[in-house]
């Protein structure tokens, strides 16, 4: 099915989009940044396509793992850093007075 921009302007229904159009929207879709109609078009395509869903699933998995990938410091290290910063701030304040 083909559609023109005019169709989109006043459209109340989603249009069929192909794999390329769907994949171009991959990150915008996963980041929740697509308008409602564009989002519905992606979901409609994903529901019937054998090619696209694995890419979306993998991208989502990677995003989830990224959120947990940051190194965290042990509490004692953080306390030490907090004290170090406080001491530096005190020195700065003393020097300025």
């Amino acid at each position, binding site marked *: 099915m083909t559609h023109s921009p005019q169709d989109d302007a006043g459209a109340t229904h989603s249009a069929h989009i192909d794999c390329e159009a769907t994949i171009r929207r991959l*990150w915008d879709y996963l980041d929740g940044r697509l308008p409602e109609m564009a989002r519905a078009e992606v979901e409609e395509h994903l529901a019937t396509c054998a090619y696209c869903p694995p890419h979306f699933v993998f991208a989502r998995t990677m995003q989830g793992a990224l959120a947990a990938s940051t190194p965290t410091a042990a509490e004692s290290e953080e306390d030490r850093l907090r004290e170090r910063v406080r001491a530096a701030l005190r020195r700065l304040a003393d020097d300025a007075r």
Partner: protein
Amino acid sequence: MCPVSHREGDSRFGVDTTSEFERLTMPFLTDVARFARSLTRDEVRADDLVQETYLQAMRGWHTFQPGSDPRRWLFTICHHMFLRTIRREARYVDAPEDDPELDSMATAKAHWHAMDAGVADVVDRMDLRDALGRALAELPPHYRTVVVLIDVEGYSYEDAAVVLDIALGTVRSRLFRARRLLQDMLFEYARDAHFRTVR
């Protein structure tokens, strides 16, 4: 929140001002430290960056707008201090402003080839958290900062644009490119792991 008059003049560093500064900013030290570690990928450099961030914040405390978000303000300063360091070390390269959706396409194509070659199966068995931590360390800083703010710290595109002082479109293009590069690195690690297994 304290009125601006408390922070004026050279009572900038008065006891009350310092206490107020610490009261509003120290609760975010954990967040700033995590951001600094994500940017530098090095504990010593990260601690230095946190200290520099807080000192710079204290010096500029009179510019802080009462009622605004101290965390975002600290992240902005932290990013500036980080850029200053890497520019000094001449490792900063400006990102090209390509069509971000082409990166979405390339990401999916690379995944398709990886599935075809069996590499995606290896990735499924990898500790993705560790692998991505390693991949983040290898990303050029201007891509790493965007992906850390949005995918790790949970910032919106708009807030990331404020912190990094770049256009919204640049946030989007760098983010998509960063994710593509991260995925490419994951497949590279998987190919290496597969090679070691079958050798």
